[in-house]
Each structure stands twice: as structure tokens, then as C-alpha cells.
């Protein structure tokens, strides 16, 4: 109710053409404000998603022991004598027979198996759909596309605003699921049917329903964004900004928008079918009524694999730009980089079966999907070699964005190479559904996407907020993150090789996994340090918003158009005249000028030499 009242206010304010508080900060149609909204939305969700991950790690490192803070003390468990305030609270609840959220999900602070399943399901769901997509695509897409192609705003500003607010509604629906009776979705982010298609298998009723509805709503938000991105990039480039003069980050966002536009309807329809199965008694995915559980997997992964590229390709684009800026050197093989991304966009549609080698899909198809998967690894390799080529002969400045971008390259290589192991079908027989997969996805999506996101955040923060983030603090944050990230995820490869299944609640239930417990504990401690290191980022971010060094227009001496605008750029971005583009985005150390950068919009001609 409160929201609709605000909406009416906003409408009235806009009708009078007075940019009031509401139309500037809440229902804004300015692409830069919408980008910031996506950023804060994503960062907020990242705190929740990260906390869920650390709870998952607690259970694996210290199986069935009371959680710190909310749980009872060890002494209480042993002696039955309450020691802490929490002990007394739990004892009281026990005596009174209190029923509340905590008692239901973690009696005495020991999480139940059902709650654990909910934790990893929601960790993945939030991180993929509500952190990486809003930040990499929503925030950077919205912020960078108009600024880097020289447009005043997106093609459809109102649609853009709707895209964010529909996304926000989706986020609220998703978070509401934590508090409904029966708990939130607990079938993994892949929601394999029939586990997900009938509440009787999990005991989760409205949690899973809200999960489906939330992602359907989010898909609408992404579709609006995708249409906007594609239209803007195709139609609104500044004079002289040809396709082959576009920065690689814009190419990557264009390709991601196309992937989203084509992939999301598949997911939306699959989720609708799942909801029908759950709520209307149909059986699309249940063999008892003539359906097929594999249909869900085919639909889900037909969306899911392009989705994986949605998560990584924008980071690839941003890292390409950042490597070039801080090597003071043109990107090596610009055209090859563009063609590699384009081929990923095509090949991404024919590799989904590699998630299903063990699913019971006809094994003859395994060979076809193994081949297509090998082929799609080639463009990723091309990109890696070109990143190395960009560093070759450069003059490398080790700024915080550069450190994060370099970490991206190294971590993405590990993630890519471990991917080959599971793409080879006979080897996948053993490592499928083990921690090897968990390690792999985190090398791609944390080592790749999140380091890329950090790089982009440190790099474009001055443009977004007019101030530079603190460099020494940024470097400490980077090194701690890099160290604890690897301490967390490298050992997971070993767990996987030892056969440790993913998504199990208590590894100590298995004799063949018991010797791995010290490693599980090490991973847990590392992950807690990794989480704690992010406080530095939060602090740096908040502090720099108000106290950071003033940035000026172009603190990194970069070439692309966004740095020609003031920091932060005003509404409409460019003042009276649009910039004109004379050259490609990466003319660093060009012999034509004495400086080592040559902005895209700088006119070099004898006629203007004395102007």
C-alpha cells in the first residue's frame, strides 16, 4: 500500500517536470541512478548470500554443532547447566514449548538437514540471480552502455526504471520465502523435478512456490533490461562509434543481453510448468502422470548454460578494458576478442547436455555434447591468450582494479581447465555431483565473475560517485580476498577427487569421507576469513562515498568515452553536444601523441592543432 502511494507521488512529480527527491532517487529514469540502485540491491543481497554460504560451511566444518552466537554453548550440551544468555533462552523455549522460526530450523542452534538444504539452495539462488546478474548486468550494463557509446540515456528510460522495480519486487518475493511455513526452497538452485514439482517430497510448500514466482518476475525484469540494452547499443551510438570501435565491455553486455533475451523465456516457461505441477495438479515432470523428469533438466539447462555465460562474459569484457588501461597498451587481438565472444554466444546454445551426462539421457548424446563443449572451450582459451598478449610489452600499473583484473585471468584459467575434466564424459562419471563441481563453479563464478566485479567496482567507482576508492585499503582487501578465496576453494578440488558428494549435510556419516574432515574444517575457517575480509570493501565503499579523494573527469587516464564526461556525469551525460568518436577505444601509447593515452573523442588534425 505504501508503495503504491509513493508511485502516485512520483507520477505527479514527473507530470510537473520537477525533479524531486522521489523521481531523482527512487523512481528515477536516469540510467546512472538505476545502475546505482541495482548496485546497492546486489550488494545488499550479497551480504545475505554470503552469510548463507558461511552457515553452510559451519555445518560442513563442524557438523551438527551449535552455531556461534545463536547456538547453545558446548558446556550446556555437556553439563545441562546453562552458561550463557543463549543457553537460558533455549532452555526457556524448550520448557515452554515455544514454536518459532529458530526452534523450527535450528533447535538449540544446531541446524536441521532440511534447513541446510535450504541454505545452499538459497545461497546459489541469491548469488546468481540477485547478486551477479544485478551487479554485472544491471548495474554495469546500465551505467556503462550509454556513457561508453556516447548516448544521453538508454533507449527506453521508463522501461529501464520498470526493470529495476520489477527486479526489486522479485527480490522481496524471494526474501519472503524465508519466513513462510515449511521454509524456503530446498531443492538446489537447479530445482530438479520431481523433487521440486511436488511438495510431498520435501515438505516445502510456499517456499518453492515463491521461489518459482520470484524468478519468473525477475525474468521479466531482465527481459526489459535486455531489450533496452540491445536497442540502445544498436541505435544510439555517438557519431563515429562504429561497432568495431566499441569497447569490449559494451560488446560483452550486448552479447549478454542477446543471451538473456533468448534464454529467459525458456526458464520462465519451465518455471510456469513447475508451478502448474505444484499447484494445479498437472504432471509435466512427474512420470506418475505421464510426464518426464528429464524434461525439466533439458529446459533448465537450455537456459542454464547460456546463463553461466551471462555471469562470466560481462566480467570478461570489463577485465579486457581494465587490463588495457593499466598496461597502457591496446588490447591484443581486439577482433579476435569480439569474435570469441560472438562464438560463445552461438555455441552456448548447444552445450547444455554436459550438465546431464549422468542424468539418464541417452549416453550416445554424451559424445555430441562432449564435442560441442570442447569447441566452446576454444574461445575462452583465445581470450586468455589475448589477455596475456595485452600484458606483453605493457607498462603495467598495479592499481587495485588491475590486481583484481589479473586475479580474474588467473582464476578463470583454473576454472576453465577444471571444466575440461568434467566435460570429458568418462572422467565425469566419477567427479559428477562431487565437490570438484563446486570448486569449478566457484572458480568461474567467484574467481571469475566476482573478481571481475570487484575490478569494475574499483575502476568505475570514481565515475559513479565522483571520488576514488582508497587504494591501500583496496589492495589489502584484494590480497586478503585472493588468499582466503584460494584457501577456500583449492581444497574443494581434493575433496571432489576423494569422492565427497556435493549437497550433503554431514560428511561424517560416510566412512570414506571421514578422513577429509580436517580439510573441511580448514575450508570453513578460510571461508569465514574470506567473509570477514569483505568488511574492508564495505568500509572502503562507504568511507570513499563521502571522504574519498575527488576523482576529476579521468583519474585513470583512460580513453573510453565515459571518462570524457564529468564525474559523476549530470543528467543527460554530455552537456550541449554529443561526443564524436574518431578512433578505437584502446589507443594507449600511440605514437601520434606524446601522452600515453589518446581518448576516443579527441580530434587529431592539423586544422585543430593550435586550437
Amino acid at each position, binding site marked *: 500500500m505504501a508503495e503504491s502511494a509513493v508511485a502516485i507521488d512520483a507520477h505527479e512529480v514527473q507530470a510537473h517536470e520537477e525533479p524531486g527527491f522521489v523521481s531523482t532517487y527512487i523512481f528515477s529514469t536516469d540510467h546512472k541512478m538505476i545502475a546505482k540502485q541495482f548496485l546497492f540491491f546486489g550488494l545488499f543481497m550479497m551480504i545475505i548470500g554470503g552469510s548463507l554460504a558461511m552457515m553452510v560451511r559451519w555445518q560442513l566444518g563442524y557438523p551438527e554443532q551449535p552455531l556461534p552466537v545463536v547456538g547453545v554453548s558446548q558446556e550446556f550440551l555437556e553439563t545441562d547447566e546453562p552458561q550463557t544468555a543463549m543457553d537460558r533462552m533455549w532452555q526457556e523455549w524448550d520448557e515452554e514449548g515455544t514454536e518459532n522460526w529458530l526452534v523450527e530450523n535450528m533447535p538449540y542452534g544446531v541446524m536441521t538437514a532440511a534447513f541446510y538444504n535450504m541454505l545452499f539452495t538459497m545461497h546459489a539462488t541469491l548469488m546468481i540471480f540477485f547478486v551477479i546478474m544485478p551487479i554485472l548486468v544491471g548495474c554495469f550494463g546500465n551505467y556503462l552502455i550509454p556513457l561508453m557509446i556516447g548516448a544521453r540515456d538508454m533507449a527506453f528510460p521508463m522501461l529501464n526504471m520498470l526493470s529495476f522495480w520489477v527486479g526489486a519486487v522479485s527480490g522481496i518475493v524471494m526474501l519472503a520465502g524465508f519466513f513462510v511455513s515449511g521454509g524456503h526452497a530446498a531443492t538446489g538452485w537447479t530445482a530438479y523435478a520431481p523433487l521440486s514439482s511436488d511438495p510431498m517430497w*520435501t515438505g516445502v510448500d510456499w517456499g518453492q512456490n515463491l521461489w518459482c514466482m520470484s524468478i519468473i518476475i525477475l525474468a521479466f525484469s531482465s527481459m526489459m533490461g535486455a531489450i533496452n540494452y540491445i536497442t540502445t547499443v544498436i541505435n544510439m551510438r555517438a557519431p563515429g562509434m562504429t561497432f568495431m570501435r566499441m569497447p569490449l565491455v559494451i560488446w560483452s553486455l550486448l552479447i549478454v543481453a542477446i543471451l538473456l533475451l533468448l534464454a529467459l523465456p525458456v526458464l520462465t516457461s519451465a518455471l510456469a510448468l513447475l508451478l502448474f505441477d505444484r499447484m494445479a495438479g498437472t504432471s509435466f515432470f512427474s512420470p506418475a502422470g505421464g510426464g518426464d523428469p528429464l524434461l525439466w533438466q533439458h529446459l533448465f539447462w537450455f537456459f542454464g548454460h547460456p546463463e553461466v555465460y551471462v555471469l562470466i562474459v560481462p566480467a570478461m569484457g570489463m577485465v579486457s578494458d581494465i587490463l588495457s588501461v593499466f598496461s597502457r597498451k591496446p588490447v591484443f587481438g581486439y577482433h579476435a576478442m569480439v569474435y570469441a565472444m560472438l562464438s560463445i554466444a552461438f555455441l552456448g546454445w548447444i552445450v547444455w547436455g554436459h550438465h546431464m551426462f549422468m542424468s*539418464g539421457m541417452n549416453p550416445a548424446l554424451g559424445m555430441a555434447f562432449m564435442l560441442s563443449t570442447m569447441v566452446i572451450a*576454444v574461445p575462452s582459451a*583465445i581470450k586468455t591468450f589475448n589477455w596475456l598478449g595485452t600484458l606483453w610489452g605493457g607498462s603495467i600499473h598495479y592499481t587495485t582494479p588491475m590486481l583484481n583484473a*589479473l586475479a580474474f585471468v588467473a582464476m578463470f*584459467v583454473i576454472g576453465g581447465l577444471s571444466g575440461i575434466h568434467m566435460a570429458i564424459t*568418462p572422467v565425469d562419471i*566419477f567427479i559428477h555431483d562431487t565437490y570438484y563441481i563446486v570448486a569449478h563453479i566457484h572458480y568461474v563464478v567467484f574467481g571469475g565473475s566476482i573478481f571481475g566485479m570487484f575490478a569494475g567496482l574499483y575502476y568505475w567507482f570514481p565515475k559513479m560517485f565522483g571520488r576514488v576508492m582508497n587504494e591501500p585499503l583496496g589492495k589489502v582487501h584484494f590480497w586478503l580476498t585472493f588468499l582466503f578465496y584460494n584457501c577456500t576453494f583449492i581444497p574443494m578440488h581434493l575433496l571432489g577427487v576423494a569422492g565427497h558428494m556435493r549437497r550433503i549435510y554431514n560428511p561424517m556419516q560416510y*566412512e570414506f569421507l571421514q578422513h577429509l574432515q580436517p580439510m573441511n574444517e580448514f575450508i570453513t575457517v578460510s571461508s569465514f576469513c574470506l567473509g570477514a575480509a569483505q568488511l574492508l570493501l564495505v568500509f572502503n565503499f562507504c568511507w570513499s562515498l563521502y571522504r574519498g579523494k575527488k576523482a576529476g573527469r579521468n583519474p585513470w587516464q583512460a580513453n573510453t568515452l565515459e571518462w570524457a564526461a564529468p564525474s559523476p556525469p549530470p543528467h543527460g551525460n554530455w552537456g550541449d553536444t554529443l561526443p564524436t568518436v574518431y578512433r578505437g577505444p584502446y589507443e594507449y601509447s600511440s605514437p601520434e601523441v606524446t601522452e600515453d593515452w589518446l581518448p576516443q573523442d579527441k580530434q587529431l588534425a592539423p586544422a585543430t592543432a593550435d586550437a
Partner: protein
Amino acid sequence: MLSWLPENISTYGAEIDSYFYLIYYITLVAFYLVAATMVIFMIKYRRRDGVPAKYHHGHTGLEITWTALTAVTLLTLAFMGKPLWTKIKQDMPPYEIQVQVTGKQFNWEILYPGPDGEFGTQDDLELENMLHVPVDKVVRVVLTSKDVIHSFFVPVLRLKQDTLPGRKIDAWFEATKPGRYEMPCAEMCGFGHSGMLGYLIVHTHEDYEAWVQKNWPESKMASKIEHGSES
């Protein structure tokens, strides 16, 4: 890293392991090459006063070379994997023992066809979570599920196959060493997924015969009494 692999007791397990080793070493070399190149470049081309960066846009010959090399290596690896995959998942060898394994929340139902060698007859023997097989014999496993998707995983056999409700999927193995091994479920199947665990008991031939003598129903009457109305 691969020394962490569990013991292997299946005939094809060693082939899977050596293929794993092969890919592991190839990717490890690739990683070291990339990482070393990167570190060398990062040191050699760090910013120094008076040393400008090269103004260089790339090299088509190099692009073609590394694209071709990567593609050839990866496709070779894929084609090399085909025979092993076909052998394990597609070409069922002649079998001597067959057993049906049914996943259900949260147990493995093990069904032996009994003396008549056919499932679904009255002399079938049903056990819970205990899969008894003889050593050095090809065992055909018919996998299915009663409720949701499970995954039949025997780490020591290097065998994994999802079980689906409404489908019967054939798998096979030949164990090479007697003993008792764990047989967990590898696909999330609900709140009891963790701890869904069966045991594979590999007997010597004599032990297996003795086990069959002792446990298998001898006549249809006997089986009727034993199973009652269970289906």
C-alpha cells in the same frame, strides 16, 4: 592431487583413473605455462620510468596458431574419451548376475531376480541397502526410482548413474576385490539425502554361493511367506 582418489576395485575404474591423470597433467602443464607467462610478463613489464608500452594491436598468425592448437588438443581429448564412455555406458557386456536397484527416499532397495532369473516374479529377493555380488563377475544393475531422482554412486567402482522414476537404466560393473564398500546417493533427494547410504558387499565365489544358498528363496511358496503382500 589424484592420490586422493579412493581405492579402485572395478575393471574399468583404472581406465577412468588413468584418463583422469592424463587430463590432469595436460591441464596442469597448460596452467603452469599460462601462469608462468603471466608472472614473467607481470614482472618484466611492470611500469618503469622512461620505458613506454609497445603500441601493438595483435598478431593474426599467433591468433590462428593458438586457436588451432587448443582446438586440436581438446578435440583429440574428446575423441580419445569416446571408446571408454561407450564401453561403460553403452555396450553392456554379457552378464552373469543381475540386480535391480531402486532409489527411494532415503534408501536403496536391492532386488534379486531369484532362481528363475526374472524380476517381478514371486521368488525375487528384496533387501534394503545391501548389495551382495561375487568378485570377478559382470553384474548388470537395473536402476530406477520410486519417487524422486537419486544417483547411484559407488566411489570404489567409479560408477555413477542417476536413477529416474518411470525409467529403467542399465549399468554394469565387475568388481575385482572382495570387501565391504559404501554406496551413497549422489543426487540431492530431500532432507534425508545426506546419510542415504547402502553397502556393496563383494564376496569371493565360495562366499557368494553360500550367501545365495542361505538367503535366496528356494521355492515360490517360501518367497510368498517371506515377502507377504509386499510388491
